[in-house]
């Protein structure tokens, strides 16, 4: 399961800070929601179920955007190296 690194700080405003590199990022509300769900240990299926009940979204489209997003998280080294989804 994909895991956000423990030391990454995420504020309620969507500001993300990596204390190891000093880099910071801003998430939009959707990104923040997804990251918080990943952080709480939810799988892709669980996150999709949550989103499907709240928003009008097709699984195929959600899956594409979800993996695009998590690939970016991995590239930015915000996830544990051995964390997979």
């Amino acid at each position, binding site marked *: 399961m994909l895991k956000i690194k423990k*030391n990454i700080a995420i504020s309620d405003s969507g500001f993300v800070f990596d*204390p190891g590199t*000093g880099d910071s990022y801003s998430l939009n509300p959707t990104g923040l929601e997804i990251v918080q769900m990943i952080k709480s240990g939810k799988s892709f299926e669980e996150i999709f179920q949550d989103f499907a009940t709240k928003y009008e979204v097709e699984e195929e489209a959600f899956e594409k955007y979800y993996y695009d997003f998590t690939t970016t998280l991995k590239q930015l080294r915000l996830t544990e190296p051995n964390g997979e989804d």
Partner: protein
Amino acid sequence: MEKIKLNIALSGLNNIDSPGPGIPVTRGLKDSLLIDPKIIGLAYDNLEPGPYMHELIDKTYKVPYPSDGVEPLLDRIRYIHEKEHIDVLIPNFDSELFTFMKSERTLKEMGIRTFLPTLQQFEERHKSNLPQFGEKYGVKVPYSEPIGSIMDFRKIEDKFEYPVVVKGKFYDAYIAYDFEQVGIYFNKIAAKWGLPIVIQEFVKGTEVNVVALGDGNGNTIGAVPMRKTYITDKGKGWGGITLEDPVMLELTHKIISQTKWRGGMELELIRTSDNELYMIEINPRLPAWVYLAVAAGQNLPEALVMLAMEMPVKPFSHYEVGKMFIRYSYDMICDLKEFEQLSTKGEL
């Protein structure tokens, strides 16, 4: 608790776009809860901003350049000491450290304390000795060789792959992409800082730095890692942020413990994409960004003065991660009378 009144002389008042550490060190001392410092600035130039910053620098004296020789400098320090009763002297320039280290005993006899690296520590961390330093203490360093002429580089060119870094013995570093550029930078740096010039393997990665203080017995009194978030065209950090990096701290502790480092230091490191750390330089003094460490919870200038005064200092164990600095420029308005006084009388 009553603060200890101390007269502290320090240099590095050139708070310009390539700043000396004098003003940040002073800010740390003025923030101290233990010391009530009178700051005596030692200036080399009439236009260094420090002498005119009266809220920080209490009195300034012009001093001769170290290149004028030890005696003229010591004569001037003697004169200043007679007037100001200096308790601690903090030289903040690489180029003057050798002279002050050589004069440590004389200064002590005069009643002036310093807290500087030993000559051996100073010499072995020199840029030209870095490969031997790395080997001796088990620290990864980029391959480098000192050269005395551009033809010297011709003879060893095969040992390097372009780009290479061309570095001065005290300051300045440029990335050269071919032999011609090496020649240009060689002449540029040699004209300013003299020989040798060091040619260093270029290691690709992110530059990270640590400011630290060693007590001379192998203990690290404090250490704060930082990444420059904004770098000027002169390669100076115009912004930075403290990092949580146990590996950098471990390396710092290792170097201080093995060398029994005495005094302030700045480690310049490159972190590669494979997360390996290469040490590219050790600066044997507190850096111009030291006030970030003070703001993050480690008043290293204060601790350095306490060590110089042989007072007990408890090592720092924490600092705030994510503390930032953003440097700025400011047009200070100065009175011509003050400029005249510093120019003609050498005192302000």
